[in-house]
């Protein structure tokens, strides 16, 4: 459970077709406390994914600083777990081997890392699927694997890039509820990227609205975890917060 701090982060890149520099991220400062769940929401093209890719170390920042537990980020590393929209499971590895991949890279012995993987599969209700290949699972099951694969490596910060955008609506609600439960149990620091306002409010302690490469506003979500959709849909505070966030995103 570590903190994540962005200081005056910016990203410009050269567009070879336009023949000019393009600014994707103008100036973003953001602080995520240890164990906090922050949703980053904004219209498409606002730079959400670019920010996540820089934090993960997939893209170099053009300016500013990224600190995880006070240490500057240089390239990808196991301290920042990532859950991808595309799931990004290794098709040639079984579910168990996928989840055991992080511990394997840390040099954990086979028996031990498989025990770790089984424990985390249990957490997501996936014990039955341990020996199957990803292509044999539904989209919802695959992303459950994606989430526990990242968690099984005990990252300081969990980065989630629209992880539930490509599963069906019912499964998405279930996965969101499971995520609030797992987060409540494990209290990992999470930065969750989404364009879905209700999802952002449902999951987070705090919603950050991004617009044109800048932080537009931050809204606290003082609702207790774990959360359930049937209760939330009736909850006046949830409705009011969602309406407020939606208003900001539309203005973005």
């Amino acid at each position: 459970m570590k903190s994540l701090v962005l200081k005056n982060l910016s990203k410009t890149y050269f567009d070879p077709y336009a023949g000019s520099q393009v600014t994707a991220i103008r100036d973003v400062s953001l602080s995520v406390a240890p164990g906090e769940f922050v949703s980053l929401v904004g219209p498409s093209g606002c730079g959400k994914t670019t920010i996540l890719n820089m934090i993960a170390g997939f893209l170099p920042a053009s300016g500013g600083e990224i600190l995880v537990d006070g240490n500057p980020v240089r390239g990808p590393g196991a301290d920042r777990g990532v859950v991808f929209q595309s799931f990004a499971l290794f098709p040639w590895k079984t579910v168990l081997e996928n989840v055991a991949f992080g511990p394997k890279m840390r040099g954990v012995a086979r028996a031990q890392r498989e025990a770790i993987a089984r424990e985390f599969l249990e957490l997501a209700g996936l014990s039955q699927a341990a020996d199957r290949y990803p292509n044999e699972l539904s989209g919802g099951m695959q992303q459950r694997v994606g989430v526990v694969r990242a968690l099984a490596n005990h990252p300081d910060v969990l980065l989630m890039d629209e992880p539930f955008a490509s599963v069906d609506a019912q499964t998405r609600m279930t996965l969101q509820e499971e995520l609030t439960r797992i987060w409540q149990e494990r209290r990992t620091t999470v930065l969750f990227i989404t364009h879905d306002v209700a999802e952002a409010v449902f999951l987070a302690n705090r919603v950050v609205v991004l617009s044109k490469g800048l932080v537009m506003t931050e809204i606290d979500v003082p609702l207790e975890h774990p959360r359930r959709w049937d209760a939330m849909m009736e909850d006046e505070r949830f409705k009011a917060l969602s309406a407020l966030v939606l208003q900001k995103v539309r203005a973005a």
Partner: protein
Amino acid sequence: MNAALRLWNLRVWGPYMRATARWPALRSIVPFLPLLALWWAVAAAEVFPRAFFPGPAEVVGAFFTLTYKGILPEYLFDSVTRLAVGAAVGVALGIPLGLLVGLNRGAHTALWPILLFFQAIGDIAWLPILLIWFGFGLTTMTFVIVYTVLFPIVLNTVLGVRSIPIDLHRAARSLGASPARVVWEVVLPGSLPNIVTGLRNGLGYGWRALIAAEIIVGTSGIGFLMFDARRAGSVVEIMLGMIVLGILWYIVDAWVLAPIERATGQRWGMVQRQ
């Protein structure tokens, strides 16, 4: 018409499917039976002089004679060994080269045009110059096979490496894999289905190039057997050589390459089953 179809399904197709399910080898043999029957009929009718167009019985006879004399096993062994050595060297050179060109932008820029250029100079187009350099020998033949096997493997490996989604690289890195381990854990298995395709094409081309080289270089092997038979005017032995080529390739494909494909790309859902 409908009744005939039902009868066919009931009496022929159904039992055939059940039989092949029990003895899968039948699936490889049965389709050849009509062809064999036609061959036998044409030969027996003596449409062409028997010495020009012998029937199955003569070819089987030649098979036993040459096997008994030890010529066929020896030549077969020579050809298969040459192909195996060529394929092994081709794989050992081709996969690392393919990984390099697929992963490294500089290597791709520098080597890709050269690879395409030399790929176009097909196998036996090298023979004239090789015969001058190395003479009628094993070096020439090995060169031709390695050359032929190499390019399909390199080009398909490059394709495989480049078709791996970037998120898989990123996932591995953010789970703590070093760049070197990403090559072993992600790039190699991720491009394996393409590598197998390359191997399949490479062996197919290599096999043909080998026979051509044996015909021209000619010291031993199935290609030499056929060319030698031409000198003796023995159509039976030429036909035998052709049939051996077909059967051998069928075995390599069905017993070696197809099982690899089933165990890898198809199992992982990266290649569609046919």
